[in-house]
């Protein structure tokens, strides 16, 4: 059985045949390299020193066929699609729901009209949109 012969090489130099001790030293150095690399990789993949964890669901990956330039938000009978143009401008359009609603983005109020596109002051796709209907009710669309 060659397994025991091979694995015994990793026990390190035995102080016997110098040529064989060279090979044992090679095995030990190789095993240390592997352990060091795997330890460092494990700590990296466990995120030991990662302070900010990016939201991967919003990451655009090469093989990802989800559209990152468009997102549809729905809630309370309203449906709004937000598109990001090639120039990086975000444009919203109300697809369904009663007219007279207003989007609230931070301190900005953007009136909506079904079927009409309006520009939104956004840097990226938000997780949710907050809309006020004609009665002043606040509705979250996700």
């Amino acid at each position, binding site marked *: *059985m060659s397994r025991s012969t091979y694995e015994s090489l990793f026990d390190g130099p035995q102080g016997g045949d110098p040529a*064989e001790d060279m090979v044992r030293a090679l095995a030990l*150095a190789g095993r*240390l390299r592997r352990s*060091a690399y795997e330890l460092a990789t494990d700590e*990296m*993949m466990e995120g030991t020193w990662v302070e900010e964890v990016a939201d991967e669901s919003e990451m655009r990956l090469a093989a990802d066929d989800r559209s990152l330039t468009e997102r549809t938000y729905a809630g309370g009978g309203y449906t709004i699609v937000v598109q990001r143009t090639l120039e990086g401008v975000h444009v919203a359009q109300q697809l369904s729901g009663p007219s007279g609603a207003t989007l609230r983005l931070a301190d900005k109020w953007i009136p909506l009209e079904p079927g009409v596109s309006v520009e939104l002051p956004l840097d990226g796709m938000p997780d949710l949109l907050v809309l006020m209907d004609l009665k002043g009710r606040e509705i979250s669309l996700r």
Partner: protein
Amino acid sequence: MCSGASRALLWGGAGTLPETHAHMKPTDTLPALVQAFVEDGAYAAELLTEFMRHVATVARPYPAAYFALSDKSDASVDDLGHRSFTVCARIEKGRFPFEGRAPFQTFVSESMDGRTIRYHSFYAKLSITREILRDDYARNIRRDPVLRWRAELYGNVGTVLKAHCTAVPQGRGVPPKWALSGPGLRVMQPLSVMESRLRSMDDHSVESLVLGALKMTGSMSQSQLTNLLAAVLPPPPSEEAPATSPNEAIAERMDIRAAVAQAWQELEPLDQHLVIALARGDAYEDLIARDPRLQHKVAVSRAVSRVGKLFMQRVVEHLDLPASPDMTPRALMEPIIGVLIDLHPQEFEGASS
């Protein structure tokens, strides 16, 4: 003739959009900077400045062991930024999403937005910058006696886990956790309690400590167990790591590189497969998968003998070094593996650099 990206940046300078888009909010300039650099070689300084800023942010929590020569300073963080930039600009990476392309080239080809570029370059757990930090850390582990002790402990913990425990997958890219094989409820103990109970055990072998720890918890990763055992076991005598190892200088000597290259050429294919497996720290199964002839004990013994004699003749005798307690066979083999990896990267693929 410059590209659209360069023109866009030229109109208003980095950070400003062309006049036709002046009514819009300024957008992320990073994609345009990368595109201008890839297509025209333009805006390198601006792009590098952007890199340095993000690399400094990523590097902030890392301890000194993750930097070149275990020294964390303004200079070593700058060095990290430059190396990260160079890798993104010039080094083709095989893994997803680069798939044989340099990162900058990938960012442009895939029309990645600024956030995605920053993710792959800096902030992802497996980003270009963190890969460089990981490689520097792995190199420092081999040089620093205390870190080396931890790596050896990590390897021994892994041997026990593979022999006695069951891996519990944690999702793509995340190392598995390990649990004791077989049924049975276990009461999870706080880490401090586990530490003190392990300390009070009579048998402080790695096997007993690992199995003892897992009896007190659900599952743990190999590195978590290593940290736990490192806290329980007496640390190695501390000695200062040399600023530069004499072995690293050996690896740079042309005559040594030539001697290693010559020894490698003289090895038979079977011997080369043994050297590759040993240098990679491969398990026995990997060895015989590489060359089934090495299943035979006589074949392994003969290969060991041939490899040993050849390296003695061609390399060690070539060194012509005065006898020194530092120059043990083990200390000499580290730079020799480094030279082999440099000379034959494809054959030694998977061995850390």
